[in-house]
Every structure is written in structure tokens, then in C-alpha cells.
């Protein structure tokens, strides 16, 4: 064997050793240090000036860098599907309101964040966009956008009315930039719903892996409270739910003539079936009879308008 062949054979293990070293440095996620923040380049979703208000200190944080602004809270928004966060400060004279505009992937995600943070006592004002106000803050879900306007002054309560026009203008702008809402989130019936109880759970709702994007709310029927929900999926999801109900210890399982199935889970009764082609259900009923009553009301109220 020639000398050069010996050298080549000797180099191969060295290359392997080098590769191991290089790989170990790059395989470990801990070695990934995010690049430094760059000047925001994303589209500015709102105008820089509205009436007497001017937007300053604009900054854009894409989803993977939102921790730079809201570290520890960014993971609340991620499950709903978020593209990023645009921040800024609206000023008019002595007034200053901070803006946190979460750009979600769709209106369902925006509603999930909106409903997830809404205080139970807050009342959503009627309108095309969903909105509630409190002393020193205005919170809006407009299409795929979730907007928070926060007074920098503790006296915000006294001045909250001055921001009404700005909030209205931003709401209109954002709605115009968002595709129309689609999907199951709009069809939970309004009648008998407990105000402020509507929420979106992005995944693993109520402990079931089969229940994702669950829009749910509390209803009172014949003085009995129960939870009604719509979820992603159709008959396939229903089959998985039924399996999980049995697997997780559901008792007294039953199937209804309409194909829905249910049972007793811990101390409450629940039923899931198909309404308008989508997975739907009721839960938290104290008795089987009450659960069936909720289910029948749910089906009746969810009939498509002729």
C-alpha cells in the first residue's frame, strides 16, 4: 500500500472525530442563540395617524421572537396560532396608550386569545368586531387581529372615552384587512348562553386529545347549567372521542338514535355527536336526563336558518 493511502486512511477517522465534535455542538439546541433583533420589517397593520392620535415606537416581533417583548406570556398565544406582535404607543396631547396588536393566523385564533384573557365580568359590546372596555384598557378582536390598547396612566378610567374614536378606526382598519370569519366558531347559539362564558380551547379540551379548537360556552336550560361545544372534525373525531370516553373511565356509556354517544365521567354527564356536519357536544350536566335535555336544545337551536 502506498504512503498516500496510509495518510488517506488516517485522515478518515480524524474527519469522523471532527464531525462528531461539530455535530455535538450543533445538535444541542442549547447552542442555538437567536440572532439579534432586527428592525421591524413586517407590514404595519394600522396607520400611523388617526385623528389627533399618532403612533410612535413601533416594533414588530414575529411569533418566534415574541419573548423579547412578553417573555413568559408568549406561550399563551402560541397554541392559538400567531404570526407576530406589533407594538407601539398612541399619543394625543398628554394622553398615551400602549398598543399590543397580536396578528393571529385566523379569526378563530384571535377569538381564542380574546376570550382566554377576558375577565369573566367583562361584557362584550355589540358590533362587527368583538370588544370590551375597562378602566384604562380597550380590548378588541377584529377578524384575525387581537388588539389591546392600554392607558399608561392610572387615571385612564377618567380618560377612556377619549380613545373611543381611535379604537373604532383601528377596528375598522383591521376588519378590512382580515378575511371573513369562517368555521364553527360562529354558530354556538346565543339564546340561553351565559354572558361572557364563551371560550376557545385550542387543543386537548376537557382532557380529550380528540377535541381540538373547541368553542364552548355555558347554557342554562330549565335552571340547569351545562356546557355546549363545537370542535374540529366530524364522525372520525366523534369515534375517537367515544373511545377516549371509555378509555378514561367513562361509565354507563350509551348511544342515541341520532348517533351521539355519551356517559358519566366523574360526577357529570356528557354527550357528543354531529350537528350540521361538525363535532358537537354537551357536558357538565348533573344527570343523564338533563344532559339529554341540553343536547336536544342544542340541536334545535343549531338548525341552519332556512
Amino acid at each position, binding site marked *: 500500500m502506498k504512503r498516500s493511502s496510509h495518510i488517506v486512511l488516517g485522515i478518515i477517522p*480524524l474527519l469522523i472525530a471532527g464531525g462528531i465534535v461539530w455535530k455535538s455542538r450543533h445538535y444541542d439546541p442549547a447552542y442555538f442563540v437567536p440572532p439579534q433583533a432586527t428592525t421591524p420589517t413586517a407590514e404595519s397593520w394600522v396607520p400611523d395617524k388617526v385623528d389627533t392620535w399618532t403612533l410612535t415606537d413601533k416594533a414588530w416581533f414575529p411569533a418566534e421572537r415574541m419573548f423579547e417583548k*412578553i*417573555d413568559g*406570556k408568549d406561550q399563551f398565544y402560541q397554541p392559538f396560532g400567531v404570526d407576530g406582535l406589533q407594538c407601539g404607543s398612541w399619543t394625543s396631547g398628554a394622553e398615551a396608550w400602549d398598543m399590543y396588536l397580536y396578528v393571529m393566523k385566523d379569526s378563530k385564533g384571535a377569538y381564542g386569545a380574546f376570550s382566554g384573557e377576558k375577565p369573566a365580568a367583562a361584557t362584550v359590546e355589540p358590533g362587527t368586531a368583538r370588544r370590551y372596555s375597562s378602566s384604562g384598557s380597550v380590548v378588541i378582536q377584529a377578524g384575525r387581529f387581537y388588539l389591546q390598547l392600554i392607558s399608561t396612566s392610572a387615571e385612564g378610567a377618567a380618560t377612556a372615552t377619549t380613545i373611543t374614536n381611535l379604537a373604532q378606526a383601528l377596528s375598522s382598519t383591521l376588519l378590512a384587512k382580515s378575511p371573513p370569519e369562517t368555521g364553527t366558531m360562529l354558530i354556538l347559539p346565543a339564546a340561553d348562553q351565559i354572558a361572557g362564558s364563551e371560550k376557545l380551547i385550542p387543543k386537548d379540551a376537557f382532557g380529550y386529545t380528540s377535541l381540538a379548537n373547541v368553542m364552548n360556552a355555558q347554557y342554562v336550560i330549565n335552571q340547569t347549567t351545562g356546557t355546549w361545544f363545537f370542535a374540529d372534525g366530524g364522525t372520525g373525531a366523534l369515534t375517537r372521542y367515544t373511545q377516549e370516553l371509555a378509555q378514561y373511565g367513562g361509565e354507563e356509556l350509551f348511544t342515541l338514535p341520532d348517533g351521539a354517544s355519551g356517559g358519566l365521567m366523574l360526577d357529570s354527564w356528557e354527550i357528543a355527536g354531529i350537528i350540521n356536519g361538525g363535532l358537537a357536544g354537551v357536558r357538565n350536566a348533573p344527570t343523564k336526563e338533563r344532559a339529554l335535555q341540553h343536547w336536544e336544545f342544542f340541536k334545535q337551536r343549531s338548525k341552519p336558518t332556512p
Partner: protein
Amino acid sequence: MSHHGLTRREFITRITAATALAAGSGALGWLFHNRRLVPSAGRAITIPSFAVAGTDSLMAVAHGQDSAKAVAAALQELGGIRRFIKPGDRVLLKPNCAFDRPAHLGATTSPEVLAEVVRQCRTAGASDIRVIDNPINDAAGCFSKSGLTKAAEAAGGRIWLPEPGLFSTVKIGPLCIPEWEALGAPLKWATKIIGLPTVKSHNLSGASLTMKNWYGLLGGPRNRLHQSIHEVIVDLGCFITPTLVVMDGSRLLKRNGPTGGNPDDVEPGNVIAAGTDQVALDTFGATLLDRKPDEIAYLAKAEQQGLGKRDWKSLKTFREITL
């Protein structure tokens, strides 16, 4: 033996060389693989305990609408500030100033509480009182918007902004982060350290209180630490043994923490808890947030690590007063 021109001696030599190279490769791989969580700038330093001898297992709770008076009263119940701060001490105060939020939103420590602690330290004869945090957002902006700069300076302290040169690799804790980049220089400078956490909910850990507040002394890509939040909080409790903690429960951010943003998420707490047992203080703080101690996983883990007791009423000294 000769086979295809290869002698026995050549065969043994080559096998030996190949084995040595393979062993060397393995050794190099072992040597470099996952040895550190982060590349270290140098040798990690150990942060000493800042506790004063004979002051362990203390806690006092003062209820009252006037935060400054409640701070003073709670400290008095512990034996007075002079029990902890001596003339000439260089005192480092660590409030929670994580976000550029105004104080009324409850995401940061109240200026009134910080100011009173500064005044107390001055009364005790501290030679220098500095206020430090490494916020999530721009540090100067956070200190300014939270009102902490104005409060500290008016009371005789000063803000120490987290300049890059202040960081070094330090030892943290036994569970997740043996060492990390932190504000080593200020910790080396200080002779005493007082934690001034606010009481707020936290999206991941359930509560952000005394131990979580030390997160603000870290640098580097610390957002990664949220992946094992409860173990990391215990590590943070091991990282700093403070001289004293003054927990600010004047406002309680009960929902949507750690950032908050809606004034309706904030409720008046009208309570100050001072003490030296981080676990006891955090357990008490959790109850202010309407959380059961069992719901906050790090509390039991911290107790197992010997950082303190969850049963605050069984401490050597526990006092509770209403102003």
C-alpha cells in the same frame, strides 16, 4: 503470515493504529458532546449567601392600605431593618421590573414599596443602595415607566442598568441550570441583597413571586428556561440566598400574568410580607392569588431542596399584624 502482500507485523500495526484512532475519535466526541448548556465565557463563580446569621426562618405579614407604613411595620416585626443592614453595607435591591408597564397594572413592584425599603436601608446606615434588574424590555424604559427610577432616586437610591460588562458566568442550582450568564459583577459588589418581588400570576408557573424574581438577574437566552419552569425556579431559589425579602402584595395581578395589561386583572392586596424563608413567602404569596400551594409545583420541589417551609406559620418567627 503474508496475505495479499500484508505481513503479520503490518496487519497488527494497522489494526493498532485504527483502534487508537477510533478510541481517540470517541474520546473527542465524549469530551465535547453536551458538556455545557451554554458556552462559558470563563470559570463560573459561586454567589455567596447574603443571609445574616441568626435570621433564618423569619416572616412577618403586615396588612394596610399605606404600602410604605406596611413595609416599615413588617420589618419592625422582624426586629427592625438594623438586624439585616449594617452601617457601610452596599445594598442591592432587586424589584420586579420585567416589563415596560406602568405600576398600576401590577406587573412590576410598586414604587412606594421600593422607596420605603431604600429609606429603611439609608436609616440603617447603608453606604450605597442600588436597584437592579435585567428586564425583558429596554431596561431604562422599564424602570422609567414603572415609576421605579423616580421612586428610588427620590428616596436616596440609584438605578443600576444591566450593562453587558456586568454579566459573567455564575453557578445557579442543582436541577436544570448548573451555571448561567448573570449579573455577576453587581452580586460581587453587594454585601447585602434584598428581593422585592411583586405578587402576580404567571402563565407557565402559576405564580411569579420571590424565587421567580431572581430570573431578572440572569442574562443570555433565558427564554429557553421557561421549558422547565418549576425546576428552574427552584434553581433560582438556590442561586440567591437573600439577606431579606420584602414581598409587595399592595397590588395583586391575579390574572393574565406575568405581563397583565388590563387594570381589571389587578386587585388591591394591601399586604406586605417580609422574611427570609423564600418557600414560606412564596406559599403565602400563592394564597394571595387564590392558588392552593399544591397547584404551584415548584413550592414542594423547593421545600425538598431545603430552601424553606411551605407551612409559614411553623417558622421560628411568624408575625401578622393589621395597621
